[in-house]
């Protein structure tokens, strides 16, 4: 499997990352290097091996239904580039 320029642009768009035109070719190469590296795994014989969901082989721990967080609006908004009236403020997003 190889990544082409168009795929790089699409992934960049989906990730909301700006990649300058001059960097597209370089990124494409990097992607392909990563894929080549991953594809080495195809050489491993995985017949009769259960898929691994997680390296932590333990059951999911659940939390009790108790309210123990919240009421920290100032902290929550602290890193926001813009905030007003208690809201996060972002450039207009209407579909």
């Amino acid at each position, binding site marked *: 499997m190889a990544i082409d320029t168009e795929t790089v642009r699409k992934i960049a768009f989906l990730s909301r990352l700006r990649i300058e035109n001059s960097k597209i070719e370089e990124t494409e190469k990097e992607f392909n290097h990563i894929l080549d590296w991953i594809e080495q795994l195809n050489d491993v014989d995985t017949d009769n091996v259960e898929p691994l969901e*997680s390296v932590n082989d333990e059951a*999911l721990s659940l939390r*009790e*239904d108790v309210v123990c*967080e919240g009421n920290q*609006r100032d902290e929550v908004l602290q890193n926001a580039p813009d905030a*007003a009236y*208690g*809201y996060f*403020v972002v450039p207009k997003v209407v579909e």
Partner: protein
Amino acid sequence: MAEYVIETPKGKWEIVCGLEIHCQIISKSKIYSGASTAFGAEVNEHVSFVDAGMPGMLPTLNRECVHQAVKTGIGLRAKINKYSNFSRKNYFYADLPQGYQITQFAYPIVGEGEVLIDLAGGQTKSIGIERMHIEQDAGKSIHDIDPKKSFIDLNRAGVGLMEIVTKPDFRAPEEAGAFLKKLRSILRYLGTCDGNMDEGSMRCDVNVSVRPYGSDELRTRCEMKNVNSIKFVMQAIENEARRHVDIYESGGTVAQETRHFDPLTGQTKVMRKKEFAHDYRYFPEPDLAPLVLTDDYINQVRSELPELPDEKKERFVSQLGLTPYDAVVICENKETADFFEKAAAGHDAKKVANWFMGDFFGMLNEKKLELKESPVSAENLGRLVELVSQNVINGKTAKEVFAIMAETGENPEKIVEEKGLKQVTDTSAIEAVIDEVLAAAPENVAAYKGGKQGLFGWFVGQVMKASKGKANPGIVNQLLKEKLG
């Protein structure tokens, strides 16, 4: 129910429709964090660092959300999957601070199930459930504060959702309406979601396609997101199906897309092309291990289930003698069914049902009261019906007594006693009244005997009047017939 067919001069078409319903889980805290789910808080006050997507924060699954989902799955007569896992659904939107939604994809917690819907004429139809999974809700965006900016409130971000996906089993808008009513009823009986579409705690996406009548092909479908009332869902299906028919009949093809339903016009318009926007790049959620349930746990939840509307309806029909229609109406809402059952206990349930659905609800509507505010208690309604059954008062007096109960909340026996409304069933007393009436109207007696049978009603009326409405009409009729020969 009559089949729903779209008929044009060019041909006959049928609708193929499926629904996806997002139901907010009733729990105290969010599905992956300890922030409160309570509605109506100050902006961004119910937000943990997990909900805000802060780096390094880890989700932990809320036990109660799992419990509610399993309960709901059993209520949908569905398979509970002992193994399920979580996935990341990646998309960018300002009200989703993590940049992904933690949901379930390949292995949902609930598999195939079934909901019976109640249609006109007491008929039912089975609607297949494809799956149900649990996930987190997004925050809310407000677009009308500033022309160039959107304002984000994350209080709702991370509230637990159950997404229920039906099979494409709907062939008429009414079926979708009946399904939503039934689903809402089941969820409220279970106490797993409050089912208020107008407040957004239950939200419906509608998928519609059409096909030539009688065929079994599946054509391109369009999806309408967040249609927020049962009426609008039915309208959206009808209008979208017509749009497809128009396109096909003029030689065009339907494009797969997400459309927006405009409640003001009832029409749909295109929102976004599906193939591009829907590249969600799902992958297994690394922060949550798979969820494994035991048979013991599932059976434990099963044993906690209340009697659901279908079972209750069945029992009301087979044991209490209600008509299927009355039973469906009474059982839709658990509080209504409970009130009725209390009223009917030990009395003639069919008669209680008639009073309940007639005069009783008429009174509540007139007074603009909720059931729980009713001045007439369930017990007193039952007592009133009993007084009629026992011939203590007649039906007409009962309506008077009911009107007093509605004003005072008094118990009907007391009202009957105090106002001296007891029906006269003593034959000799009624006979005496009849004799008076007949003696006072010799011309009419003669006319009746001469063939004017129509006067009989007049005699009954006179006797009832003379007895101040307290004579038992059955006895009056019988005695009058005897006396008039």
